């Protein structure tokens, strides 16, 4: 009888972890195949390094864009589908600012505001127009934070305490309204932003070839890491951070213990949306172009990053972003390019099934 129970427990143990074990084997197989490909020369070290670099840059973009989402998700308990369009707003207003700062005086104002002026003629890059870029970043933060507060006031605040799904549906409405108001005023179509010829880049030798890193990729990487660390420190060592963590844990308890929940929510939106705006601006800088739906197109990947990292965790968002970014670019080793986004989604879905609490495990670490 006793052995029976033991066997049962063992069986249960294996069954519970069967998916995890299978997944581990699958990943091990991929790694082995990767080495085989490197060994046989089917894949050069340089192109692998290129994938890793691209994946890291994408991962940091997603991580940075994900912090704001993680913050509002943990405080307000809903998946904000308008988050992607906050990213777009940040990119658009920041770049209008950068265009105006650079071009006003020598160019007509209207094409600058509409982001229609030729990026080649304007010649913006971090090195040629650092002031414009800096001001653009500042404006993207301020405007996006302001917009998020306004929308919270109109849409989400009257709905406090409602179920997550109701808020989610409202946020879909916000997403549509914001995106298509942008389209209405500025019209669709991609906009070139930076001047490739004015952007410095470096070739790092890898194996027989080399990997190119542009100044804008470097800027994104450095600022993303700096902003993430800054946010973490802010949330760790300030009263606001403590209040926010308390609310994420248990809102009722926080309210009873005298934490001004409405103020914490406002500050969360300010900080979260500000970071989101910055992310939008920097991602557009790195890509050198934007469309009115680039944030929306990033949204699912950002969700993937945040969920993967464990909702409510800043470091989690960063780690999740890197995993998603690397997974999608490294999938190029095996898959055609048209599947890289799908690959990232598959990673997210599998992850949710195996470990729904996220990589850094359910605790709100912030």
């Amino acid at each position, binding site marked *: 009888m006793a052995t029976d129970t033991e066997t049962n427990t063992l069986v249960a143990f294996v069954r519970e972890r069967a998916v995890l074990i299978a997944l581990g084997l699958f990943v091990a197989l991929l790694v082995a195949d990767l080495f085989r490909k490197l060994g046989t020369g089917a894949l050069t070290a340089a192109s692998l390094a290129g994938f890793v670099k691209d994946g890291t840059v994408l991962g940091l973009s997603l991580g940075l864009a994900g912090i704001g989402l993680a913050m509002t998700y943990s405080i307000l308990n809903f*998946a904000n589908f308008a988050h992607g369009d906050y990213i777009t707003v940040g990119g658009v207003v920041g770049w209008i600012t950068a265009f105006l700062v650079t071009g006003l005086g020598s160019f007509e104002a209207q094409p600058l505001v*509409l982001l229609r002026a030729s990026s080649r003629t304007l010649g913006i890059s971090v090195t040629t127009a650092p002031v414009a870029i800096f001001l653009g970043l500042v404006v993207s933060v301020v405007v996006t934070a302001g917009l998020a507060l306004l929308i919270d006031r109109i849409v989400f605040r009257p*709905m406090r305490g409602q179920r997550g799904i109701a808020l989610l549906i409202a946020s879909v*409405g916000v997403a549509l309204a914001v995106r*298509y108001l942008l389209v209405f005023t500025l019209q669709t179509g991609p906009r070139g932003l930076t001047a490739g010829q004015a952007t410095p880049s470096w070739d790092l030798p890898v194996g027989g070839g080399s990997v190119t890193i542009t100044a804008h990729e470097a800027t994104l990487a450095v600022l993303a890491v700096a902003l993430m660390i800054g946010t973490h420190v802010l949330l760790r060592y300030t009263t606001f951070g403590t209040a926010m963590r308390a609310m994420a844990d248990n809102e009722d308890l926080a309210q009873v213990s005298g934490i001004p929940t409405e103020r914490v929510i406002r500050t969360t939106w300010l900080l979260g949306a500000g970071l989101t705006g910055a992310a939008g601006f920097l991602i557009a800088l790195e890509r050198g172009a934007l469309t009115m739906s680039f944030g929306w197109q990033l949204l699912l990947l950002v969700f993937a990053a945040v969920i993967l990292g464990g909702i409510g965790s800043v470091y989690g968002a960063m780690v999740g972003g890197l995993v998603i970014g690397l997974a999608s670019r490294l999938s190029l080793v095996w898959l055609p390019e048209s*599947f890289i*986004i*799908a690959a990232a989604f598959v990673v997210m879905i599998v992850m*949710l099934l195996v470990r729904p609490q996220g990589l850094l495990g359910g605790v709100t670490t912030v």
Partner: protein
Amino acid sequence: MSARVDDGMAAVSEWFDGRSDAALLLVLAVGLYALFTGVSLVLGYDLGGIVNTLRRITFLSAIYAMLVLALNLQWGYTGLFNLGVAGFMAVGVYTMGMLSTAPTTNPPGLGLPLPIGILGGVIAAALVGAVASLPALRLRGDYLAIVTLAFSEIVRLTYRSPVFETFSVAGLSLGTGGSTGMSLPTNPIRILFYENSQEVTSPPSAFGEAVFGTFEAIGVRAPVVEGTAYAIVLLFVVAGVYALLRRVGNSPFGRVLKAIREDETVAGALGKDTRLFKVKVFALGCGLMGLAAILWRIGGLASTADFRPITTFYVFVALIIGGAGSNTGSVVGGAVFASLLFEGPNFVRRVVTQYVDIGIGQTPSTIFEAVGPLASLDVTPLLAYTISDVNVSALRLVLLGVVLIYLIQNRPEGLLGHRTETAASVDLSERPGGEDR
């Protein structure tokens, strides 16, 4: 103002309460037809134009009603928040296309008879739905929303991938057409009117000749007659789907679905295998979404652009308008959404263009040219800008967003969601054989 809108909706829904479902739907249909006939007359359409307008309204309303009914089963009844509607629709359409388009077309299909293609498409959508529901068994609402949305994007990106533009399985050539899309078999309604329904160039059959001739005489051309006949057939299909889902809802099966929506733990504690029910609901709902999409696209093109997440949101808006949880509400929501929110703005544009003289080539191309003249109190450029084709499309989506926010804030139960549709296969309102209560 918002209060007045809310009162209005409350009044409408109160009025609905007192009516039987059939009367309600009839009044709705008559109202919408009257409205669009009026608009057509304002636009100066002849009889052919009026019929064509009503055909389009009917067609779209029927398709959306079907989609909303299917989603209502999943969300309204069972509480499963499926944001992957577009993906399951795509599976239905593409499977049908690959099964039934001729091997000679580009991309090639298997050339199987259309009924097999349609059945195959519905079954494929149902199976994919069942597979996709496996996460639904363990995820909470918002995660399920994100996963199903991601799933539908995976489906769309796969169909769009050049890898599957044309490919072969077991020596048979197949293809999705990648980003250019795939032309689908001709509309089966042509069997009624043409000698060889699958040939676009086929001459009409004797019956077709007679019908076309009759209608031609009163100014309704053959394609409009054909389309109208198809729209009428679709109304019958909607009626069938409605009857099916009403039966599903009003049964012990539907009772368990409601229980899962209300409190899954309780349903489990009462001996219901909730996982099994959820899988079945996903399969049935997604199969119907596949069917609706097939009926929507057949005779035209399957393109991944039609299966973006926005299509899913359309269906959600329609369901929320009608009221989640009510089958009759689903039909009402589908019709109101399709005719007023989806098609309405285009008609507003046409009416405005009719009565405001903008002048050819005078439409401003930027917001500055549109707003600038406001300084001299000239609103025409702004109006012209606003009602230009692309901008009406953009504003329609803004409107959709605002409507969504308004409804979820002020009237989350929609027009009919608060009504009692008791889940039992027998009438629960009386107690036969029992003494008076």
